[in-house]
């Protein structure tokens, strides 16, 4: 186990820079999730950490050692690939023991460690099978087993769950988290799925277009997104954004599209009349008599909650209710955001106000 320091790392492919100076401190034993839309550079960063891509500038260190010029095999890391990259011609046991075999470990030692890893992952009955004979979830576990056997300083996961069906994904999510709680190995996990990030991470790093937008614990990111991108990326369904202006005359309000008025707890200093983006999460709407007029468009019940799409001031918003309302398309209701949970962003910079 080891800490990892990523300092001002840049990566260019030819003249095209994909990472524009990324710095991420990772503490020993932390579970860090790099999350962002495709093309944000998260996988490239992970591959640089693994040593599969060169580092154009900046430094990456694992423990006390700068690894920029160290071969992947010398870095003492293990990686779980998106397609698992299991060796098809080796059995599960051979796949898991391959790295030990290359290090000339004795066959007793290999057997012992493969057996232990197989027990942790419930793979013991499958050790003689070939990857082709396994289901997706089992292959996934073998890929993790291959990493565990090594007992590395750092685990790297590159979108490991994206090839699994929805149900299995949820189950494996828990399994990986539990595994981390048991082994406490520093883990860097890449995904584009913000739910995976929220549920698994000690620390989330939201990346976008080759920069870090925000770093923090899942709830920090949810409660205090630093900018509009993070606000929109974290949370499902996504946060509603309405463009308008802050009005301060006695009581601070937000004046949105078509003159719709929405409540504010307090206006940031000097924000009177400024163009802003008003952000409210779907779950922070309530039905109240002093709310804004809204016309319901679509109602989507999921059982535990109901998603309601409605028009407020001509803009579509989505609200989520835990309680069961009898709504029909075309109904007029009054939606009121909880003012203490509302976010304001500068319209020009997208920064939190």
């Amino acid at each position, binding site marked *: 186990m080891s800490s990892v320091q990523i300092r001002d790392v840049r990566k260019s492919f030819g003249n095209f820079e994909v990472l524009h100076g990324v710095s991420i401190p990772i503490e020993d034993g932390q579970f860090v999730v790099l999350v962002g839309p495709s093309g944000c550079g998260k996988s490239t960063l992970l591959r640089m950490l693994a040593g599969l891509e060169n580092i154009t500038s900046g430094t990456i260190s694992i423990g006390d050692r700068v690894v920029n010029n160290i071969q992947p095999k010398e870095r003492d890391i293990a990686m779980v690939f998106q397609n698992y*990259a299991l060796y*098809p011609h080796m059995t599960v046991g051979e796949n898991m023991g391959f790295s030990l075999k290359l290090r000339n470990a004795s066959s007793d030692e290999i057997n012992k460690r493969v057996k232990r890893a197989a027990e942790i992952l419930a793979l013991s009955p499958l050790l003689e099978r070939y990857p*082709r004979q396994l289901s997706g979830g089992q292959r996934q576990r073998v890929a993790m087993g291959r990493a565990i056997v090594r007992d590395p300083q750092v685990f790297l996961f590159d979108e490991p769950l994206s090839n699994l069906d929805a149900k299995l994904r949820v189950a494996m999510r828990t399994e990986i988290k539990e595994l981390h709680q048991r082994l406490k190995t520093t883990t860097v996990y890449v995904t584009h799925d913000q739910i995976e990030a929220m549920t698994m991470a000690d620390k989330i790093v939201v990346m976008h277009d080759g920069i870090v937008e925000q770093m923090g614990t899942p709830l920090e990111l949810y409660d205090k997104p630093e900018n509009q991108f993070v606000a929109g990326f974290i949370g499902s369904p996504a946060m509603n954004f309405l463009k308008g202006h802050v009005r301060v005359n006695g009581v601070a309000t937000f004046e949105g599209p078509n003159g719709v008025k929405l409540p504010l707890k307090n206006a940031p200093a000097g924000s009177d009349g400024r163009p802003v983006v008003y952000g409210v999460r779907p779950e922070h709407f309530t039905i109240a008599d002093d709310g804004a007029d809204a016309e319901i468009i679509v109602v989507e019940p999921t059982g535990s909650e109901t998603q309601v799409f409605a028009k407020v001031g001509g803009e579509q918003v989505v609200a989520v209710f835990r309680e069961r309302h009898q709504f029909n398309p075309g109904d007029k209701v009054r939606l009121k955001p909880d003012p203490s949970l509302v976010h304001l962003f500068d319209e020009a910079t997208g920064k939190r106000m």
Partner: protein
Amino acid sequence: MAVMAESAVAQVKPGSLWSRAFESRNFLGAMFMVPAIAILILFLAYPLALGFWLGMTDTKIGGAGRYIGFQNFISLSKDSVFWLSVFNTIFYTVFASVVKFAIGLYLALLLNERLPFKSMIRAIVLLPFVVPTVLSAIAFWWIYDSQFSIISWVLVKAGLITRYIDFLGDPWNARWSVIAANIWRGVPFVAITLLAGLQTISPSLYEAANLDGATNMQRFRHITLPMLSPIIAVVMTFSVLMTFTDFQLIYTITRGGPINATHLMATLSFQRAITGGNLGEGAAISNAMIPFLVAAILLSFFGLQRSRWQQGGRD
């Protein structure tokens, strides 16, 4: 739709034997197979059977032969030229195939790397395969010519030898010469096929092996070779079959000479059957190749049998 309508009509009035036959799966299946079977019989089974039959007769060009049983084979077994051709064929096949495999694999690995001018190099590698065999054979004939050989000329000018090499006049020189020509011609097929095989290996396997701590040599030994083995089996079977039955190169360059030193079974068969007119004896020589070919095919069949790791499950 049409089929359904037709069967509906047929049900309404249970008609003739003919229309009922057309409703039977088995009959229809057999009908559909007729064209394919006819083509196979006409172009595969008949010539093969004729070859077998000729080998059992004393047919000469211009005369009908009669059945003489295994007489041709018995006389061949006492024929030293025949046994020399068997030796030549095996030597030619084994040596050329091994070298073709080695060079082909090397080129395939090279072309699988990131190289400048890769597509151009790949095109150049394919060239020997594209040139008609007879044309390249004639080129080699000139290269090996006793007076005009470019190899001899270069070596003499370089001061390495004093006399021109008699490439095609000395038995062993001739054997090595035709083997070299065969290798030159056969390498592209091996290289390109193995390259295709290499490109099916997922790069992430190499990355995983890299992280697992494998050196280049270990990656080749533990990933490339096992993953490539099914393709190797196919390509080497083809290579062995084509080399064993080679005719054009030998016939154009040496015609089996000097003193039968480069006669392969195929060229000897042609010489006895067509040039010499003894169709029966020539066919017998060709038939004698069959056990060797079957052995080669069986060998690769067992090699080709899908290994356990390729079976079962889906991707």
